């Protein structure tokens, strides 16, 4: 095993994980001297009663200053500004974010504004601009996927100006992540599958892309193993509390991995399919992951082969001859997608042609593939991918993943 000449790793989030750990929050708040939280969530989360579960868990011990549940699907600057104002008016002293990636990004944005005492969040865009400790932020993920509870980044969109701004600083990451199995217990199976595959993509890309390091590797391998051991069982019995908790842990571990070893081509293309056609991120990740591994295979044979152990299990690993292991890894990712497709009544898509919106219409029309490939060229994750990609390379991958056929290996330029 080769160790990198140089790397950096940071994970400063305290993690509290268990079946009934929301009840710990009052004590956790006490430890950090906070008493009046603003709870930030979205309509979907409050609609399924998770806010009530949280309220009951907090009990009488702390006064919730306010609950806001109108965070949109994508974080928005205007919402962040409005909620920061409410935070100040009510006199809160900490934040609890209950939800998925967008809720957490929103809470991170609010935190920058109220801690830095500004009215213009956009002053803090970029890397390392936030330079001081912010107000306490507790993250309670309600999907097991994005891993944002571990990341030092927030993406806030300005929908009017059509801008997507990135904020990166170690101070942005939450102080505490509370992983409570009740929070993901009611997640519909199709979303469970997609978000788990997002976590899988984080782990696999963290392990195989240029920023990898021994710390991120360790997180990634454990995350993959947990997903392999639990995803299908949870799909078949969604009430499996232990399985749910395992997936939540996998997502957090994968988050720790990829925030310290940034992802590559799977995310470059995934982001652009998301922005061009609005396909949910996890769905893109599931579809693109085998293609990313295939594309990078000539550079990553060894690393891809190593993934067979967590992905296929010990027996599979031992019985597969060394030179076939990498191919077997790719096979297992495809097989996982197929199994998820089968157990989800075909709602888990295996390729983009198959992705439908609510009206049953195709979300990714074939004629938009060139636009997607073009957008991917401008995505920062390209840098972290082990092999280079030009427009034709992106197009080749997106076309194959649309159709659902493996990459034509002879077309991969090897330099």
């Amino acid at each position: 095993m080769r160790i990198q000449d140089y790397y950096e790793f940071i994970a400063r989030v305290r993690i509290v994980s268990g079946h009934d750990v929301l009840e710990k929050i009052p004590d956790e708040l006490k430890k950090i001297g906070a008493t009046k939280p603003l709870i930030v969530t979205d309509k979907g989360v409050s609609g399924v009663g998770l806010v009530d579960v949280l309220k009951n868990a907090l009990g009488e011990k702390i006064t919730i200053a306010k609950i806001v549940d109108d965070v949109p699907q994508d974080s928005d600057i205007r919402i962040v500004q409005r909620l920061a104002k409410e935070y100040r008016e009510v006199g809160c002293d900490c934040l609890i974010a209950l939800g998925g990636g967008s809720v957490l990004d929103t809470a991170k944005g609010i935190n920058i504004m109220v801690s830095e005492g500004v009215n213009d969040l956009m002053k803090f865009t970029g890397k390392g601009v936030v330079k001081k400790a912010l107000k306490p932020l507790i993250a309670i993920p309600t999907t097991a996927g994005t891993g944002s509870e571990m990341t030092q980044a927030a993406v806030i969109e300005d929908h009017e100006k059509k801008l997507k701004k990135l904020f990166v600083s170690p101070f942005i990451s939450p102080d505490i992540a509370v992983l409570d199995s009740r929070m993901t217990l009611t997640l519909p199976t199709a979303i469970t599958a997609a978000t788990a595959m997002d976590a899988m993509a984080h782990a696999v890309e963290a392990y195989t892309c240029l920023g990898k390091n021994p710390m991120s590797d360790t997180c990634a391998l454990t995350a993959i193993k947990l997903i392999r051991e639990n995803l299908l069982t949870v799909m078949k019995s969604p009430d499996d509390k232990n399985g749910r908790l395992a997936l939540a842990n996998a997502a957090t571990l994968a988050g720790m991995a990829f925030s310290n070893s940034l992802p590559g081509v799977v995310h470059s293309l995934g982001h652009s399919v998301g922005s061009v056609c609005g396909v949910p991120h996890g769905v893109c990740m599931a579809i693109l992951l085998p293609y990313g591994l295939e594309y990078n295979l000539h550079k990553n044979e060894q690393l891809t082969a190593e993934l067979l152990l967590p992905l296929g299990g010990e027996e599979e690993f031992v019985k597969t001859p060394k030179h076939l292991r990498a191919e077997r890894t790719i096979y297992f990712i495809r097989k996982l997608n197929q199994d998820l497709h089968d157990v989800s009544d075909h709602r888990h898509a295996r390729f983009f042609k198959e992705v439908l919106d609510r009206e049953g219409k195709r979300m990714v029309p074939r004629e938009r593939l060139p636009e997607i490939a073009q957008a991917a060229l401008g995505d920062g994750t390209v840098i972290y991918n082990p092999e280079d990609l030009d427009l034709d390379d992106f197009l080749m991958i997106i076309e194959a993943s649309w159709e659902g056929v493996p990459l034509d290996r002879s077309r991969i330029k090897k330099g």
Partner: protein
Amino acid sequence: MGDYREVQAGSKPFKRAYIAVMLWFVGRAIQAAARVDKAVREEFEKLPEGFTFSLGVQPHGPYMIVGKNQKGRVKYLGWKPESKVVDLRMAIKNIEAALLLFTFQESTAISICRDRIDFDGDLPPALTVIRAIGIVEVYLLPKLISKLAIKRYPVWSFGRKYLGRIRIYFHSILGY
């Protein structure tokens, strides 16, 4: 050209001078490649008119500045970023990091992964510039060395590679 390269005294003058020469040459070669090479030209066509970027070393330089003028021509604009409006700043964090990059001990991608370069500006143009510099490196350097700088050594026709190389060297040295 009344200009000459100024070397900050007292702090690693030889290393600084080496980087200064490299930056100066790469800057002029980008200008040349944008005329000679179709792929570089197409990368720059994606950038808006008047777009200017700088690449240099923190905190005291050296720097190079390249920009697109109103006619869409890519020009090397010298080594003084202070007097110019720059849309994209790429600043290597220190002279040692610059040396790793310009002695090809680290590829551009690895340098960025290791957080050795600060970017100030939008991401898509930054990636465009990085791709253009990658192509320029293939022109300027022998395969053995440019393979260390970029991820994938391209397959080019004899004409593109060797005639292109001669033309780019010629234009870079003469500066037009």
